[in-house]
């Protein structure tokens, strides 16, 4: 009963005008960043991170949740209208949305995308509210050796989910772990890798790493481009959409079927729980399953609303699932939840099994924000701003990236009022630029940085319990479970690789 009233209290918290304003503002920012090709909702949340020093933690979490949800669905706008997915999670939507746009049904495709996002996002948020307390109960059963094996499992899955670049994923993850070891040791009061400087004794703050990896590196990459606007204005003229066409016909919704929506939402949620999978994986798996189980698989790739519904429903449902491991185990599975973890850590909060019960009043508004963003803000934003989306996202690049640079750099200054953090952001930005140019997954770098200290701490604690004998990892049942799970995942993801079935290569 306590948890139900706590969750309902989260909805009541949204009635606070300031919180509501941040939720709507966050949603609009997330929509913009998700829709503009090259920008992502991760970048939006990264830019928000410095501001959380001044914001109330609940307000910051509410804004993060709405940005996350908006970023997942808004990528479908440019994916459908001009065949450029605003976010990687909308790549499958482009396969079906753009052919619909070409035959004059672009608005309807956006309507299907919004409906799928709305259903998936709402169900994902509901599942999060129901499942997170249960997962927290399970998390209480896991002891120190099990925690080590769980984090190792998470890192290994993050690495092996980098299809085609496992070595690069491993390098990026280990590099993140290495950066995290700078500063005071996690067990004893000993400074490591400070190279004689006092500024490194406290270690590397998460903020310059995030700002550098996601914002500064993006500036460097965008500096190569010569186009003056984010979206070519000539493409906007060719992609006009009318408000009245947004509502998908009931016959098509019936044809897609309730079960397809439900199945896609469950797939998305489950994929979200997995470390490193993310929205694009959720959309891909759901799209593939939808095509496999469809009565008309031959229609896929030619503008089929079923494919849009499956992909969008899954990538928005993923938002709910992604929060489960972060809140219950303190293990973020993707960059967004890693940054949300940063918001919590900045405010002196550490997620874990007890977190859901002890801090429900702080977390419940975030759940409510996910739900309300999906159920109300997605369709409302589409209806009100839909016809103007392309004009909004087609802005001058010089103004956009100059603004991002200022928010990112001054934001880095906020943490310690020192330009050292800004310099670190620049250093990490240059580093991430080189990594991104060579297709090293920077998300692995961030997750290695976030999970590295816990991995070391639990490893050392577990070994000290057993006099340095590593057999404890194989005799402790919870640890053994995660080791077995790692083996299973390794078998299915590396040895018996999943087949693409040419989905990604089909011409849009």
């Amino acid at each position, binding site marked *: 009963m306590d948890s139900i009233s706590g969750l309902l209290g989260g909805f009541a918290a949204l009635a606070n005008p300031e919180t509501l304003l941040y939720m709507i503002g966050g949603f609009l920012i997330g929509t913009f960043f998700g829709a503009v090709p090259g920008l992502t909702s991760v970048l939006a949340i990264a830019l928000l991170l410095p*501001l959380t020093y*001044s*914001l109330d933690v609940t307000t910051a979490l509410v804004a993060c949740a709405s940005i996350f949800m908006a970023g997942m669905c808004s990528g479908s706008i440019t994916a459908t209208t001009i065949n450029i997915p605003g976010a990687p999670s909308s790549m499958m939507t482009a396969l079906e949305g753009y052919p619909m746009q070409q035959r004059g049904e672009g608005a309807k495709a956006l309507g299907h995308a919004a409906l799928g996002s709305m259903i998936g996002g709402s169900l994902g948020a509901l599942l999060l509210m129901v499942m997170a307390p249960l997962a927290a109960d399970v998390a209480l059963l896991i002891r120190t050796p099990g925690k080590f094996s769980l984090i190792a499992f998470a890192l290994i899955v993050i690495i092996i989910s980098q299809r085609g670049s496992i*070595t*690069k994923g*491993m*390098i990026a993850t*280990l*590099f993140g*772990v*290495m950066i995290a*070891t700078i500063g005071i*040791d996690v*067990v*004893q009061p*000993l400074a*490591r*890798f400070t190279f004689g400087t006092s500024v490194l004794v406290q270690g590397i703050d998460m903020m310059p790493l995030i700002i550098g990896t996601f914002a*500064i590196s993006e*500036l*460097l*990459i965008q*500096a*190569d*481009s*010569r186009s*003056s606007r984010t979206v070519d204005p000539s493409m906007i003229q060719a992609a006009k959409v009318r408000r009245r066409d947004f509502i998908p016909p009931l016959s098509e919704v019936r044809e897609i079927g309730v079960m397809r929506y439900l199945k896609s939402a469950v797939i998305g949620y489950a994929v979200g729980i997995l470390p490193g999978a993310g929205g694009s994986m959720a959309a891909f798996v759901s799209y593939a399953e939808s095509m496999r189980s469809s009565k008309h698989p031959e229609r896929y790739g030619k503008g089929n609303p079923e494919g849009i519904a499956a992909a969008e429903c899954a990538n928005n449902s993923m938002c709910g699932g992604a929060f489960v491991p972060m809140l219950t185990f303190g293990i973020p599975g993707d960059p967004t939840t890693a940054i949300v973890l940063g918001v919590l850590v900045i405010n002196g909060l550490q997620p874990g099994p007890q977190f859901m019960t002890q801090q429900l009043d702080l977390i419940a508004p975030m759940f409510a924000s996910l739900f309300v963003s999906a159920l109300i803000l997605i369709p409302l934003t589409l209806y009100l701003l839909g016809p103007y989306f392309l004009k909004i996202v087609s802005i*001058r*690049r*010089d*103004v956009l*990236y*100059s*603004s991002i*640079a*200022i*928010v990112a*750099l*001054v934001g880095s*200054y*906020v943490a310690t*009022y020192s*330009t050292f953090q*800004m*310099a670190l952001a*620049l250093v990490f*930005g*240059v580093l991430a*630029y*080189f990594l991104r*140019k*060579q297709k090293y997954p920077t998300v692995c770098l961030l997750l290695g940085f976030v999970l590295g200290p816990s*991995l*070391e701490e639990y*490893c*050392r604690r577990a*070994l*000290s319990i057993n*006099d*340095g004998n590593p057999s404890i990892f194989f005799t402790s049942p919870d640890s053994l479970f995660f080791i077995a799970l790692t083996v299973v995942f390794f078998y299915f993801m590396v040895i018996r690789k999943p087949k693409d079935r040419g989905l990604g290569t089909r011409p849009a």
Partner: protein
Amino acid sequence: MTSKPSSRQSTQRSSLGGEFFVPAALALITLVYLISAIQLGPPMKGGNMTASFFPIATAILMLIALACAMVHALRGKAKAPEEEAAANAESSDDAPRRRQYVGLSLGAIGVVVLTAGYLLAFDLIGYFVATFVYVLLLTGLFSGGFREKWLTKLIAAIVITVAGYLLFEVVFQVRLPTLWSQ
């Protein structure tokens, strides 16, 4: 006849660059890290892990992974230089390949230099002047110069500087350095 092989060679050399030199540079950093980790003391003491164990283990794993990446880069070059060169040419920007210095394009170098200058100026001359100049130069860099729409750029620089001030100093109460507070 003679120009073809030489152009191919130069393409090969440039495409080997990042794929090989990024892990090579990381290997150098990791070696420094490993030496520092070893200097922390023995990895085990009295049957327990010390502060150096985890960094040493991480560095060794990292070096193995980096060695694999470098070997992969070299083998990839040896196997299909033409295909890779073609793929590299295709995968880069739609524009012709831009001149690069130490793996950075001219635009990226511009951003790095401007940002480094901004960081130095931020504390010295304060938020307003430093930000205005930085934004003005960035707008020029992102739009290919100041020959066109310079007035718009000037106005954009003023608006972004003031908006940044309002956001951080007024809304979020962050004390920004000013020229008169130095």
